[in-house]
């Protein structure tokens, strides 16, 4: 028995789609409340003036990791049924570069662009159109990119397996990295925000 999430439902069933819809709405609401529907907010990441994106995303990673660990330990979730995406070094490296360049240009990523579009921002709609165009183009090019598309396959890698650490110890290491990252991020924000305060006063 898997609870609280019906992960054992067949793919594409009404139940699975309902859960996906509810999770999507919740995710979008959280992004909007964190102010990530604004391109200016996201561009602050690259100008090192506002690292909210880094903090929100790393908080989500740590929360999900701790949640999965303890829900599994309590017997409420079967980690063996949680899909771990496969690693393809070549295509994921190329995709990461394209994604990063697109995010720096647009000031939005796929999730935040949907949030921006849902709240009526024109730039959000433009980015949504752009990434659907990109998905279509990639789909059409896949047959010609066969060797690149499957290059560097490494299977489902996890950090603990890769580094030979126990999952619990890996959890502590990632949480410690997150905490250190938050301290450094706030220090950077403080450093870059200080001159602006003086100008305004």
């Amino acid at each position: 028995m898997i609870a609280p999430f019906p992960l054992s439902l067949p793919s594409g069933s009404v139940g699975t789609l309902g859960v996906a819809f509810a999770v999507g709405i919740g995710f979008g609401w959280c992004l909007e409340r964190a102010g990530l529907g604004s391109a200016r907010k996201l561009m602050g990441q690259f100008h090192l003036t506002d690292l909210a994106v880094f903090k929100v995303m790393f908080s989500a990673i740590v929360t999900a990791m701790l949640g999965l660990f303890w829900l599994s330990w309590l017997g409420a979730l079967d980690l063996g049924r949680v899909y771990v995406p496969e690693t393809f070094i070549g295509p994921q490296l190329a995709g990461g570069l394209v994604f990063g360049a697109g995010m720096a240009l647009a000031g939005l990523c796929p999730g935040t662009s949907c949030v921006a579009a849902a709240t009526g921002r024109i730039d959000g709609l433009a980015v949504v159109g752009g990434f659907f165009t990109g998905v279509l183009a990639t789909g059409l090019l896949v047959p010609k990119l066969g060797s690149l598309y499957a290059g560097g396959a490494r299977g489902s890698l996890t950090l603990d397996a890769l580094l030979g650490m126990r999952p619990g110890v890996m959890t502590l290491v990632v949480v410690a990295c997150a905490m250190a990252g938050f301290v450094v991020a706030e220090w950077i924000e403080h450093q870059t925000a200080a001159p602006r305060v003086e100008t305004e006063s």
Partner: protein
Amino acid sequence: MSASLRDVRRALVAGGLMLAVLAAVVGSPAPSTRVASSGSEDARRLAPVVPANLGALQLAAWIREGSRELRVLDLRGDSAYEARHIPSAEPIQLSQLDTLASSVDATLVLYSDDDVRDIQAWANLAARGHRRAYVLSGGMSSWMEEVMEPMLHGDSADYVAALSRYFGGAPRAARAREERVSRPDTKEAEERAPATTDAFGEPARRGC
């Protein structure tokens, strides 16, 4: 930031750190023995033995993903194993399960051609603390039907086809099935046909 918000943030940070430290102490996210042994001894003795079943497609996905600590155990006997077996499967006899060297956290998938043997093997593993032991539903025949020669239809057709080809399978389009359904008299015609062996018991040639 207000003082109350700062307090909430500090509490969340402290809670997260505490859970992380405890996770390091616990080590593994596998369900604890305390949870596993909840309930009275009587209730567990009276509980029916219902093995955890696993579909062939799910097993194929796990093998392809290279899931950690996955072992596939073939209980059908050496001759059946040598004739045909699931990739990465190990031949093993029921009596050898008592001395199976495997972590209790490992994922074990059993299959045979005998439901009783499946249940015996699964119960043996479950009694020795293997919480991730599964019986392949339908055994080797379901592997052949669902992975090696799957009938493709619906939204999952591409996924199933890719999975099948990964194992060297030959997925079939649903159209072939429809053609067979539209010509139900084919099998009857074959049954009505004369014997296909010649006087010496050898297969008779057709079309010559």
